[in-house]
């Protein structure tokens, strides 16, 4: 016991750290997509009922509720359907702000996904812009979206609004 009986403040907060460990699996269909990334390709799956191609597929067609069974190799380019410019720093962020975050509809796919756009000033991005994936060096490819460094303009003319408006 200390002589200088410094009065402790009453307890008002309680630290309760929680740490849990899991063995995570993305499942069969997503593993195929991720293995595709490991080879520098986008692998989607087609629903046999509605014919739509999902990339990545989580194993089912979200509207029909049936397994997506047919593997479909997609192109390396796609169209920016919409986008935003991120100006806010947040925990876990690895890219210098500001940067462009876009919904990209890969050629041959029926669903867009979110991707990073680089090699263009943030004020020049447009809806409809044609972009292509830039991959990490072959030695660094992993079964992860980290294998895609970013997307960049591929030089083609912008896609017509009518061609992608149903994907907004």
């Amino acid at each position, binding site marked *: *016991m200390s002589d200088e009986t410094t009065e*402790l403040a*009453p*307890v*008002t*907060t*309680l*630290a*309760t*750290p*929680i*740490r*849990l*460990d*899991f*063995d*995570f*699996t*993305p*499942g*069969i269909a*997503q*593993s195929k997509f*991720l*293995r595709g990334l490991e080879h520098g390709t986008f692998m989607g799956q087609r629903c046999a009922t509605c014919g739509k191609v999902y990339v990545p597929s989580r194993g089912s067609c979200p509207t029909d509720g049936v397994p997506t069974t047919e593997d479909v190799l997609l192109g390396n380019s796609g169209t920016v359907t919409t986008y935003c410019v991120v100006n806010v720093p947040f925990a876990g962020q690895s890219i210098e702000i500001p940067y462009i975050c876009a919904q990209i509809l890969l050629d041959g796919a029926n669903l867009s996904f979110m991707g990073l756009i680089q090699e263009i000033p943030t004020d020049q991005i447009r809806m409809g812009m044609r972009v292509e994936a830039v991959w990490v060096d072959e030695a660094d490819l992993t*079964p992860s979206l980290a294998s895609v460094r970013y997307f960049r303009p591929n030089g083609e003319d912008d896609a017509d609004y009518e061609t992608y408006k149903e994907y907004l």
Partner: protein
Amino acid sequence: MADSEVLHAAHRLEYPYSRSTGPIIGAFLTALRDGRFLGATGSDGRVIVPPTEYDPITSDDVGDLVEVGPGGIIESWAWVSEPLRKHPHQTPFAWALVRLDGADTALLHTVIAPTPDAVATGARVTARFRPESERIGSMADLEGFVPEGGAA
């Protein structure tokens, strides 16, 4: 063929939650840090330990806080011969429901004893607190209960 294999990876879910205690839990933990136990008076006059803002049966607001313990009796217990990594003791111990002297409900904590033979329902135990310098205002300020008479 590696390419057909389903992927797996370790996933760690981790966050350092920080909780505000409110007045009743805060008072209990403050007293615990001082090496004392507080209970709250429930709607029918029963003394509830550990105290919550509400009676555990009727949900009415609790009344005054009163001091209880530090001795009490074991109402039930369970012997852990192989502690889990997150358990508060890494040598064999007992989880126990201990009704402190002056309390009408039992507190969940641990009994520190060398063997299960030293633990029994109905047996008297007393609190063993951590050294004052190590107390932070949490349930872990109470190291555990020990059989009265000092068998541990």
